């Protein structure tokens, strides 16, 4: 299959290789949570809710009482994919993604400012169309910011791949299931530090570098967007307060 039209250079959905899908974000969508956000990358739609910092519920889980305990639970809604199959909770993929999100967010949260406390991040995929991992991280960042949890920097994530000899930004489901390499990158935007890097295929070094560069560019663009969203949200809150 031609994922990039060799004559026009367009992808199946009409994007160019270095273009991202349309982004959409909304903050404060779950009233009962301390912070929450909805994040969309094209048809991939993810909701995140943050509770905390609050008292540690199960002391046994706390390794270091001088730092906050970050917990993360990732779930995919049964209706999020086309086949509407009921998936068991806690399967290997979910456990792995929960761990990835937790570690990525932990790298940014100033946990030492919140000793003896715990922060719970719940992420749920409402609609899956490729790049769910990245969307979850972006949603979690927004929700944490909404909850007012102190962070070093904004963490954003984006994926890129390599199909038809072309590096492609932000793969959708069709491109993702083509079997090519899929690189997911997470960065601390301002500090320009990579905090997450995953790939499930082999790529020659120089190709890998261009593909990763592309994903980083994507992360930066998302960071700009998230900043705008937060700024607007702050302005709105300011207005409300009078």
């Amino acid at each position, binding site marked *: 299959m031609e994922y990039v*039209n060799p004559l026009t250079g367009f992808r199946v959905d*009409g994007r160019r290789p270095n273009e*991202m899908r349309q982004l959409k974000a909304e903050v404060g969508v779950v009233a009962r949570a301390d912070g929450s956000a909805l994040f969309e990358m094209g048809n991939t739609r993810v909701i995140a809710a943050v509770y905390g910092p609050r008292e540690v519920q199960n002391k046994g889980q706390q390794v270091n009482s001088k730092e906050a305990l970050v917990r993360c639970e990732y779930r995919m809604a049964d209706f999020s994919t086309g086949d509407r199959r009921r998936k068991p909770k806690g399967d290997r993929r979910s456990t792995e993604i929960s761990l990835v999100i937790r570690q990525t967010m932990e790298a940014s949260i100033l946990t030492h400012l919140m000793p003896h406390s715990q922060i719970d991040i719940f992420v749920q995929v409402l609609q899956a169309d490729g790049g769910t991992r990245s969307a979850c991280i972006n949603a979690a960042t927004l929700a944490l910011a909404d909850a007012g949890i102190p962070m070093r920097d904004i963490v954003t994530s984006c994926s890129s791949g390599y199909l038809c000899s072309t590096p492609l930004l932000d793969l959708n489901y069709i491109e993702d299931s083509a079997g*090519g390499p899929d690189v997911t990158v997470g960065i601390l935007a301002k500090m320009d530090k990579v905090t997450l890097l995953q790939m499930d295929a082999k790529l020659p070094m120089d190709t890998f570098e261009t593909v990763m560069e592309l994903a980083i560019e994507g992360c930066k663009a998302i960071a700009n967007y998230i900043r705008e969203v937060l700024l607007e949200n702050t302005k709105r809150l300011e207005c409300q307060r009078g």
Partner: protein
Amino acid sequence: MLQSKTFVKKTKAGRVQKVVREHYLRDDIPCGAASCSTCGAVEHPLSADAAAILVVDTNVVLHQIDLLENPAIDDVVLLSVVLDEVKNKNLAVFNRIKALCSNKARRFFVFTNEHHRDTYVKEMVGESPNDRNDRAIRVATRWYQSHLGENVKVLLITNDRDNKRKATEEGINAETVESYVRSLAQPGLLDLVVVSTSGDVTMEDVEDLRPSKKKVIYNEHKPMSEITAGLRCGIYHQGKLRVNRYNPFEAYVGSESIGDEIVIRGRSNMNRAFDGDIVAVELLPQDQWHESKSFIADDDEDEEDDVHLAPNNADDAPRKANPTQSTVTSSADSVSSRPVGLVVGVIKRNWNSYCGSLEPMPMPAGSGGVAHALFVSKDRRIPKIRIQTRQLGNLLDKRIIVAVDSWDVLSRYPSGHYVVLIENDINTRPFSTQVLACLPPLPWTLSPEDLANPNRQDLRHVRVFSVDPPGCRDIDDALHCTPLPNGNFEVGVHGSNKYAKCNFDLQWLWHIRSISIYTDIADVTNFVHPGTPLDEEAAQRGTSVYLVGQRIDMLPKPLTEDVCSLRADVERLAFSVIWEMTPHADIISTRYTKSVIKSCAAMSYVEAQARMDDSRLVDPLTVDLRNLNSLAKIMRHRRCERGALTLASAEVKFEIDSETHDPLDIGIYQIREANQMIEEFMLAANISVAEKILKHFPLCSLLRRHPSPTKEMLEPLLRTASSVGLNLDVSSSKALAESLDNAKAVYFCSGDLTFSEYYHYGLAASLYTHFTSPIRRYADVIVHRLLAAALDIAKLPPLFQDGPQLTGVADNLNYRHRNAQMASRASVELHTHIYFKTRPTDTEARIVKIKANGFIVFVPKFGIEGPIYLTPKGDKGGDWVVDEVHQRITKPGTSISYAVLQTVMIHMEVVEPQPHRPKLQLTLI
């Protein structure tokens, strides 16, 4: 720009599952016209002073591709909606139009109308996809006209009456192909125009000429929606239609839904379906299944009913899979139990170009007039094809190629048009200037840089030689065989470093007990770089095609016959595989290197054999040969022990008259020890390379596999064997020659299969690939690149990082390979006919299979297989009784009987029951 500017989401609702896909609409897609100042510039714009910018519809591309390829047609806009439709309907045409669009010498511009904000159209309620696409084409045409303004004429070219009318109503300039071509006033072009079919504008003219054909002959095909519905609820059955080669009025459709073959009898029930079409079939009521008793005898696979070449060796058995139906069953049973049906629709057409000749007819009055001629294909399964031509005189009595365009219910025969020469989809066109521009400057000589390259070993001092068929000019392999002080041998296989075959170069000192053997393969990849037009052309051609007295090259001649050919006494670049072998042919070590070699002798098999046989010769070269031969014998013996097939390869050889190109002599290619010796080292080199590349690139190596035959395929052979008291072990491939033409050896990408599936049954090798013939096979070029990357000499081209694309490459190679073999066979069969036409012959033959009304014989002298009828045609063999178990046919009351493997004397003669369809007939003496 990282984010799309404008977008709308489109939902495509599937049958079971709702699939939601994003569809971005944009405002930054250029129109491609040089005269436009609004859009961004494009690389190869449509000319600013074009008389008209043409927008073509899907059917124009599908049917008039020969016309579009003519340089007189230019400044064409291809809409993405058109390209998508063409791709779905006919991949061969799609590839040709794609080549046109990327050809820098032509002005064909692709406009992505489906993603442009102003030209995207949503399907309306009740609108068929076809109507929606036609509307999209009109909307895009109108957009071009308004976008470019009144100074530029935008013309919609369509043969669809309805579409043209609507276009005119909407104020779009629209014309038919024919009227547009007429307006160009180039009479030669008109011959390329394909006659239109029903529903098309020019139908009236055609009907005038054939008033008698106006009545409806066939049933209308059911609309696609009805067919899918019918398939779902089990009224219709889907399958591939195969026409009986012996009786073109009978066909079979293998249906999975019934698990049996459906018989289709007669042209009207076949309802315009071609051999190979995917059709939908409706079963006739069961009481009609018995119907015609006259068709029974040939319920067997068709090919056996014509005289044809006996299958070649296992690795390139080219024939299509046989049905797994049981063969000689008692005829009465098989008729009543087999369902009979009729075709209600064609789901996918298998229209090709066909080779044949025109039925003799009087010249039309007046010169330059249009003649309506009937084309008779060489392949009897294909119906006659009606064509229009203005050059009847040129075409009569010639072998021509015709493409099918359409077949409407009003005409008995399909209509087509005359094309130049593309049978079996083989590209015989000369190489383009872009391709030729990639050649190195000629005459090519070894450069100091090549010698200074640390990755290239200088082997010019080594005694390298090549052994090939006589007259071989594209030598791509050479050998050497050198004794080592420790008693071992160094053996090398060397291949041209360009697109060349491989030269084996073996050196040896006979008084020392060990040898090193080199195999040198032409270093083609040194000259053919990935991604260049030359590379793309070679990838597309896939393989050189060998016809009798003719070769259609994969690479331009300067490469195949000079630069990459490892000729004697010239320095050439090669890719070498070098083994250290013990005198018992055990491989101690293997190494691979790019090299420079200088072959000391390019011998033919006969010469090499003569040298080895002449005990007086003790020169180093002869000694090398003998050593190689003794090693090869050990290797061969071992391979056979493991169960490799040793096939009497029935390769037919012709001696061709240089004046008339008619065959003067025919015979089986004699296999000498020298041939087997070379073959053995080539196999060894291929296996060694396969191991190396797989080790480095487990996911993206190009390998070759040969699946083990299934039990059903072996069934006839087992029956034959047991009838003469042989018991065969079928778990290995030993002695299964005849059954093997069913399972084909194929290329595949190592990532697509598991290790156990890599097995090559015919060669009894767990791994195999093609490395030794890079001049004439593209697979070998790919393998050369993989090997170079595995050795860290070169970087792996991007193609290999792309699993799906690599799989696509392997599929194309299989397709090209198959076509090339079919073409070679057709060519040999044609020359066999020409030869026997003037020379009726009596010869010995052996019975290989018993049929209800005769038997199939193999003629060892000419490598031919064909039927012998014991009863006259139409008579169903009532006089003869077949004994299935003992594979014997007897005439009751007499002592006359024939059994399988019995030798008989036969008479071979060419008869011509129908004009221009000569047939080689075998009769018993």
